[in-house]
């Protein structure tokens, strides 16, 4: 198993497991505080939105509403306690988000916001806020 292969396998296995447990009841969508910020989701059928998420977990294209909801997930986890099934819908959304951003290859289905200067920025701030000794020990 090469470096990073384990995470891809884990994402696939967890996607399969959660997609099998979820009944698409839509309780997670109805509880979500981000629906108002996800275009088209507030007016969509909650069951259809979750069905689209499950499609993404199964390597499908999803639906525009499902992808909007996936892209708008900020990990509030308000969905977790309302789910009637033995699963965590917040984890389901996290997996769907990673897949929709192209984590397993095959291109992204939602916009990917990555900060190419992240690592250099962290180090630049560290040089401002830490002593040289602290940088040597802490970074």
């Amino acid at each position, binding site marked *: 198993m090469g470096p*990073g292969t384990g995470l891809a396998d884990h994402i696939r296995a967890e996607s399969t497991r959660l997609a099998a447990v979820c009944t698409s009841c839509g309780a997670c969508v109805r509880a979500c505080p981000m629906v108002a910020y996800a275009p088209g989701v507030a007016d969509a059928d909650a069951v259809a939105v979750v069905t689209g998420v499950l499609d993404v977990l199964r390597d499908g294209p999803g639906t525009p509403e499902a992808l909007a909801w996936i892209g708008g997930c*900020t990990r509030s986890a308000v969905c977790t306690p309302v789910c009637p099934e033995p699963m965590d819908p917040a984890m389901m959304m996290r997996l769907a988000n990673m897949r929709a951003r192209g984590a397993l290859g095959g291109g992204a289905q939602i916009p990917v916001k990555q900060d190419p200067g992240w690592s250099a920025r962290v180090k*630049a*701030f560290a040089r401002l*806020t830490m002593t040289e000794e602290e940088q040597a020990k802490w970074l």
Partner: protein
Amino acid sequence: MAVTARWDQVVFWYGCNMARHGEIIRLVTQILRAVGVDAAPAGGPAHCCGSPQEASARIAGGMASRTVEKFNATGCGQVVTWCPSCHMNMDDFMAPVTPPVFETRHITELLHARRERLRELMVHPVAARAVLHSHAGFNGRVPVNDLVPDLLRLVPGVEVIDPGLRVPGHMCSAISAVPGVLAASQRATLDVMAAAQADTLVTVFHSCHRETVALERGRNFRVVNWIHLLAEGLGLGYEDEYKIWRNAEDPRGAIGPERIAAAGDVAFERLVEPELRRPPTV
């Protein structure tokens, strides 16, 4: 770089973006030492949970595995987390792929478990009518919205008010990526601060602190992190330089040319200065 922790210490895994707040890392280690825990800080890109590279499982997974392997190599039995993203990634993606030989515990849990020792050390009154900046997320994993107020109430003079506002997301960096959410949450926060007649807004996480300190401008309250308030109660000195720089009319002047040169002029200009000069969200 390898973590410099000894087996008889705990690793304080502060994450990456906490590099903006060196004083919080320093204060956490001082507070832990005061309650009998010797902690070695570790963070930055070399100890990444993989979160910034999640668009590629290959890259994120490689980063995450290397971090677990580094922590395993220390022989430390406990890794104490700060960042909710790191904490959740450890539970959800890192440990299941690369088995750790340590337990993971959030800093709020560790300090809360030692709160009686902490209470004995809180001898410096701090006058504060405080509202906690709370998110809905992460609290289901670690009940930070209860643990942090409990800890703040150890500080003599601190009154903690819970207006019941739970901002979406697990921390502000998550909601800042969705247009309109950060601004709406900050307006709601200002409303509850006014209704509660609070003079102190307390942040829990680093990205919330980063996004929130500019709310001080032109307003009659201060923004502090919960660690800052604990430090004040313990009599530990600190300076929140990020807040000073972020709210300075001239961040360059506030930091000074020598420190900017030490950080690297080009890096400062391209990577740091735009963030410090960014207008407040509301």
